[in-house]
C-alpha cells in the first residue's frame, strides 16, 4: 500500500487508489471524534464529579482506544499528519 504522506493534508481520492483515500477519510473522522471524546473526558475528570472507579474505567477505555487508533494508522500506512485535513482558510482540522 502506498504511504499517504505525499498528500500534504489533502485526502487523496484518486480512482485507482480509492480504498486508501477512503481509509484515510474514515480514520480522519474517527480520530476527530476520538479527540473530542478524550477532551470531554478530561474535562469531566478535572470537574471532580466522577468516582475513582469511573475515572479508572474511562482512562483505561481511552487508552485502549488510543492504542487501537495507532494500530489502525500503522495498518493503513498513515501518520498523524495524514489525519489532519487541511481545511483551507479555516486551518487544520485537528
Amino acid at each position, binding site marked *: 500500500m502506498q504511504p499517504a504522506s505525499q498528500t500534504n493534508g489533502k485526502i487523496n481520492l484518486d480512482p485507482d487508489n480509492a480504498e486508501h483515500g477512503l481509509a484515510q477519510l474514515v480514520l480522519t473522522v474517527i480520530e476527530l471524534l476520538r479527540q473530542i471524546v478524550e477532551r470531554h473526558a478530561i474535562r469531566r*475528570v478535572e470537574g471532580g464529579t466522577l468516582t*475513582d472507579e469511573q475515572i479508572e474505567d474511562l*482512562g*483505561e477505555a*481511552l*487508552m485502549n482506544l488510543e492504542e487501537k487508533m495507532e494500530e489502525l494508522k500503522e495498518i493503513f500506512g498513515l501518520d498523524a499528519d495524514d489525519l489532519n485535513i487541511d481545511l483551507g482558510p479555516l486551518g487544520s482540522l485537528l
Partner: protein
Amino acid sequence: MDRLIYLYGLAQTEEAASQPLPPLKGFDDTGDLYTVPIGKLTAIVCSLDAKEYAEEIIKDRINNDMEWLQEKAFHHHETVMKLAKMYTLIPLKFCTLYKNEDSLKAAVQLNEGKMLDTFAFITGNEEWNVKIYCEDEQLKKEVSENNPTIEAKRAEISQLPRGKQFFEKKKLDKVIASELQEEKNKVSEHIHSRLSEFAVRGNVKRTWSSEVTGRQEEMTWNGVYLISKSKVEDFLKQIQQYEKDMKEKGWQFQASGPWPAYHFSSFS
C-alpha cells in the same frame, strides 16, 4: 492619454545624479525605468498605461492571476534589489502607483522631512533577515528529561493504576508542550537580543507557518536587523557560531541579506 507612474523606490538626488540609471525594463516590460528628481529626493519610476494598469484591474489580477502576480512580484523584487545595490534606497511596496508625475511629486514633497531622516538612518547600513527553526522532538526530549519537576511527576504517575495514568500522562504532555514553547521563546529571545547588539536596530516579525516555509521544523523566530556595513561580518560569524553550537539540539539558522531596507523605511 494619461500615463500612471509606478514608483520603485527613492534615492537621494546627490547620489542618483552621480550614478546614472542603467537601462532597466519597466513593469510592463516595454518602457524603461527613469528618474524624477524632486528636490533632495529622486524617485525611480516607470510609466504605465492608465487603462491597462487601472487600480481595479491590478486588484483583480493580484487576486486571480497567480502567474501574473508571480512574474510581476519577481520583477519588482529584482528591480528593487538592483537599485538597492547602486544607491541607498527607500524601497517601495509592490504596486505603488501614482496618477501622474504631479501627484507623485506632491506625495514626495509632503514626506520629505521623514524621508531625509530615514536616509540618515539607513545610510551605511544593511538589512539582514534571520530565521530560526527548531526541531521539536530533540528539544522536547531535553526539556522533559532535564526538568526535575517533570521527572518527579513521571515517577509519581508510574505508581498509579492504568486508567488514572492515562489522564495524568495527558496532563503532563500539556505541561511539557508549554515548557517546550517557553524554552523555545526564551532561547530565541536571548539570541535576538544578542544579535541586536550588532545592529542599529533589530525588529521582530511574525513567524511563518510550515505551509509557507515548506519545512518540517517550526519557525521559532523571524527577525530583521539593520546593521552597519562594518559589523555585518561579525554578525554573520555570531550566527555561524550559534549554528555550530546548537545544531545538535535541533536548532537551525537561516540568515539572508543584504535586503533593501524594507523594514526600516516606510513611505506614507
